[in-house]
């Protein structure tokens, strides 16, 4: 039997919320992409959002980031938020360390950038130009840039989708490590079911503008893909996403 999740202790009803969404709606051209969403995320909780493309995952993330405004409802989030986008979005004209502490200069900023880069294993690349980095390295810089601000909420929008499978596995380990160290609330948007099960405390499936399913993941981290519970969860989620387990085996 798997051990109970250590993070389950956060599930106390009295625990303060890091994210509070109440009846949040957002439409584009009269089409409700998000329709009266209600969602609470505890501080330090890792939530994964799954869903076929076009279901409003990015829209939800942009609302949480403050890059977009709700049409109706209320949304309360931590003051300090960070985003890792699908692309690294590094300023090509700035050195790696300058990108990490974007907008700040001086020795103190440089030292902070150095610490953050060490955490993602890129201390040696502080003075490199972004164009010289591989896709995985650039995305790790983006992670360092997101964490250097010590965000209360970390938003990840399919951050590993463009990476190769091996790099992605390393990134999963890294994200887990960083999350355990800094412990921000995390919303990870992904279309990779395994990724969601590997990382998240709770998985939401978004469909037709609403949260279709909410699934707590009661496995201790780090998780083993070979765990029968893992397989059961995967089958359940794939069915929820309308994909037969046989067609999605990969």
């Amino acid at each position, binding site marked *: 039997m798997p051990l109970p999740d250590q993070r389950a202790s956060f599930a106390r009803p009295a625990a303060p919320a890091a994210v509070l969404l109440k009846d949040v709606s957002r439409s584009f051209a009269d089409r409700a992409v998000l329709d009266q969403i209600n969602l609470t995320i505890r501080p330090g909780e890792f939530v994964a959002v799954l869903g076929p493309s076009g279901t409003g995952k990015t829209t939800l993330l942009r609302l949480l*980031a*403050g*890059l977009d405004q709700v049409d109706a409802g209320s949304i309360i989030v931590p003051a300090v*938020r*960070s*985003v890792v*986008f699908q*692309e690294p*979005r590094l*300023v*090509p*004209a*700035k*050195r790696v360390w*300058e990108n990490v502490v*974007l*907008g700040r200069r001086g020795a103190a900023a440089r030292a902070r950038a150095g610490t953050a880069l060490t955490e993602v294993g890129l201390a040696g690349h502080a003075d490199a*130009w*972004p*164009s010289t980095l591989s896709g995985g390295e650039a995305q790790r810089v983006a992670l360092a*840039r997101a964490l250097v*601000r010590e965000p209360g909420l970390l938003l990840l929008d399919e951050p590993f989708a463009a990476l190769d499978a091996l790099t992605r596995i390393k990134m999963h380990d890294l994200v887990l490590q960083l999350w355990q160290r800094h412990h921000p609330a995390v919303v990870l948007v992904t279309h990779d079911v395994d990724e969601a099960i590997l990382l998240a405390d709770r998985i939401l499936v978004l469909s037709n503008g609403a949260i279709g399913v909410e699934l707590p993941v009661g496995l201790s981290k780090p998780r083993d893909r070979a765990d029968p519970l893992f397989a059961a969860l995967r089958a359940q989620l794939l069915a929820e996403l309308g994909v037969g387990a046989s067609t999605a085996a990969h």
Partner: protein
Amino acid sequence: MTDIVSLAQYALSPKQEAPAAPQTKGLVLVDLTPRARTSHLSAAWQVWRGRLLRVGSPLAILLVWQIASGFGFVAPEVLPSPLDIIAAFRELIAMGDLQSALPVSLYRSLSGLAIGGTIGLTIGLFAGLWRVGEEIFDAPLQMLRTIPFIALVPLFITWFGIDESAKIVVIVAATIFPMYLNTYAGVRGVDPKLTEAAKVFGLDARQTTLHVILPTALPSILLGLRYAAGVALLALVVAEQINARSGIGYILNNANMNQRSDIIVAGIIVYAVLGIATDLVMRVIERIALPWRPKLALA
């Protein structure tokens, strides 16, 4: 299976003198095995041949030119010989004409470029960064830029007379547009995804401009500067046709009146050298200002 084996054998046998690709059941194979590397000596020869030809072919042209002039195939009034042109340069330097003309012409083009470039840069930044700037300036500037600046010269003469200021105004008018267009395009061309990221990370408008937009737009701005510098030279040539009493244009005008084609060609060569020098300076500036750009080989 046999196909793969035979292909492998084939690829591993460089001794075979490039046999025709084996054809099996309609499957056409090509030989991608690297050919025997060229020897050290022949590689060195190729490098030196390149260098020799690069220097040699212009020299050969000069030689043919000189010989043709020497045998009287080309009348010296039409096209003086290379040696005549060298003599003309000697004369210009000995008389001190070139030394006094160069600074005057350089001053005209550089001050015109500085004024026009600054105006173009300022308006370009204003229109690029602020919508209201675009609304005010973009339409009129896009209309004005279609006018060839040379067509404006008579107008400038009636406005500013035929003295120094008219010349500089021509250069200013010519350089504003390349600077404006490239600055505006550079600022507008910054990926909105970058500015969005800056917003997420709490940068205000000033910081975003300083740390994200301007550094990212700099290549385009410098390209505008390079174009403007080239146009400044062109405008200098045109401007110096206006009653020049000094500068390279003056040398050319004088030579024209005295039917000295050797000095005319020498003056044209000075303009050409200025053009090459301008381009070199701009490349150096780009190298220094854009260290993050992947360097092109031998650019």
